[in-house]
């Protein structure tokens, strides 16, 4: 229809080139941070004997989700170790934890701010829609452009993909705090921050925890995909299985991902429930 092609690809490429060259220091610092986090998580977990880590995880699971899930965790983790995927398991867990930590640091304040400011909420909503509906693979490209191949772009892509649900649910949870509870705090002469920390956030906690749960689940799915740009971990084994048509190997890695997903899901779901019932 138009006699020329709208050069979106050129614009984006130019912009990325510009950012990478002009803000190299920023990207380097961010990379350093991500490496620091991932390495520490990984080294910390690898430092422990697999059995010790299994006991730690089982203990957390027992507290948060009951003995059935804890038993499942013990069996599942021992299986992972048995089939030789222990290191991959720890690497993936470190990636997920790092990404989730970043998501919480950024997502919680943004969610709270969105709940308290309608204008910001109306701006951020389409951005979140965009982030969630964009195919997950697409994030890999700019991530690679900014950070090259490897672990950092994997974490970045995971972060972008896992951020929206936490912002959304934090916003929702705080907006759903009954009006009377806020009025009650006001009537007692509460300040803005007293209202936020003593009423709104605690009351919204189950919903916020649901957001944490969702973002961890999304993050885990993305971490596997991020193996395509060299993030490592279980995704790498899945990918290798696909590339070499080794169904069995791919299945094993996939199984371990599922085990991790179930454990993480039950732990974080337990967090939300515990808040709302006790």
């Amino acid at each position, binding site marked *: 229809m138009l006699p020329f092609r709208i050069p979106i690809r050129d614009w984006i490429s130019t912009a990325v080139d510009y950012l990478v060259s002009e803000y190299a220091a920023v990207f380097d610092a961010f990379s350093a941070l991500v490496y620091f986090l991932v390495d520490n998580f990984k080294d910390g977990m690898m430092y422990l004997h697999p059995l010790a880590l299994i006991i730690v995880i089982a203990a957390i699971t027992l507290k948060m989700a009951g003995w059935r899930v804890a038993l499942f965790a013990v069996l599942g983790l021992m299986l992972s170790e048995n089939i030789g995927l222990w290191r991959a398991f720890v690497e993936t867990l470190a990636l997920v934890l790092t990404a989730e930590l970043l998501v919480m640091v950024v997502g919680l304040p943004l969610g709270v701010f969105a709940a308290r400011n309608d204008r910001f909420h109306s701006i951020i909503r389409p951005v979140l829609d965009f982030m969630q509906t964009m195919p997950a693979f697409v994030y890999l490209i700019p991530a690679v452009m900014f950070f090259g191949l490897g672990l950092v772009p994997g974490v970045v892509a995971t972060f972008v993909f896992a951020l929206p649900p936490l912002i959304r649910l934090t916003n929702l949870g705080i907006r759903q705090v*009954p009006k*009377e*509870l806020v*009025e*009650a*705090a*006001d*009537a*007692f*002469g*509460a*300040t803005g921050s*007293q209202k936020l920390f*003593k*009423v709104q956030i*605690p*009351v919204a*906690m189950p919903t916020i925890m649901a957001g944490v749960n969702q973002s961890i689940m999304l993050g885990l799915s993305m971490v596997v995909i991020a193996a395509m740009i060299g993030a490592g971990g279980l995704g790498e084994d899945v990918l290798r299985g696909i590339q070499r048509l080794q169904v069995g190997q791919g299945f094993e890695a996939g199984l371990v991902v599922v085990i991790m997903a179930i454990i993480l899901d039950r732990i974080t779901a337990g967090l939300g429930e515990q*808040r*709302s*019932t*006790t």
Partner: protein
Amino acid sequence: MSDIITVRNLYKIFGDKPKVAIKALKEGMSKDDILRKHKQIVGVQDINFSVQEGEIFVLMGLSGSGKSTLQRLINRLHEPTSGEIVIKGTDIVKLNMKDLREFRQKNFCGMVFQNFAILPHRTVLGNVEFGLELQGVDKEERQEKARKIIRLVGLEGNEENYPSQLSGGMQQRVGLARGLAVDADILLMDEAFSALDPLIRRQMQDELLELQSRMKKTILFVTHDLDEAFRLGDRIAIMKDGLIVQMGTAEEIISKPADDYVKTFVEDMDRSAVLTAGTIMLPVKERAFTGDGPRTILRKIRRFGLSGILVTDSKRHLQGYIIAKELAEYVEKNKGKEDLKMDPSLVREALHVDRDMPLNEVINIYQEADYGPIAVVDAGQRLEGVIVRGAIIAALSEGYEVELNDSSEPTESTESRGPSESSKSSESHAPPDASASSRPGD
């Protein structure tokens, strides 16, 4: 008692053109027309009233009448559009946010809500100490105080329970305790008991009155329930379309409804719960004194054709009741005796009620009575008047408003007693003429 809250010319308009709406209101346009024409919602208009220290002031009205809006204006949860709200000499409309917060902490016991609005993530203790915590009171002190209040509202033993473990009535006690724990005078209650089932509600009302007699807070109570309003309120303001249509005590409102709107409300009302012994009593026409001899007393009885007579001392303290027939027999038996003394066994215990006792309780006492009228006494046990059956029936029947003010008029009281005359002879106790005040030695 002095005024603690004074509200003058208060308006609240919801919308973007409040000035236009207020101007239209002052020109006499109705709330509905303003909504239609200017798209502005009138919350409350032209509100003027004062609340006295230590009273329970009830704002009564149907939903949409502006009662909750008015209450939220008093602590500025809603910003007033215009007008003054003077609380303890400070016009709170003029305060900035910081001063307002401090003012609320110092003067308001927070608010008690229909759906309790207690914090689900905190224990009972954590909820009750909430107000003090906001004020920065240190942990030990505030918990000690909270525990004391928890005992006071009857929640002892539930300190560590979470709200979800409590019944509705108990949850509302937590809401109430949270307010009372704060060292302030004004307690706002918004439909506080409306979500409770009728029995619990009644119980909570009683408990509130009982607590109030000890704590002497100033309570601004919002309700849509007239029975509740009349039960709790020292004074009541009835609201409609954002206006106060009538303000006064329960008895004033029920006996003189300001307009048809109030009248329709009051018609459904259980009058016996509102009217008190004091309102329906008749003046005492004749009484005997402790020093009177039997023949003097008999003469007094016969002069008015009574079936009995109340006995008081010279300071009107009620002493008992003498039945005419028994006295006459006694005098007859001792015909010859010159200096006949009164036989103390003839003076029976007189049934008496406090002047503030609601009529429905008076009726219960009347039903148990074997003899005599019911004497009405004041707080010092001094005789103030008598209640006869006819007066009770008249008070409960329609058209009572007219009669109430003329109860001393002779013909009316005799007429109203007419239908039940035969059932109880003692009703003739209050004859139309004569008055005790004209007695010598009074």
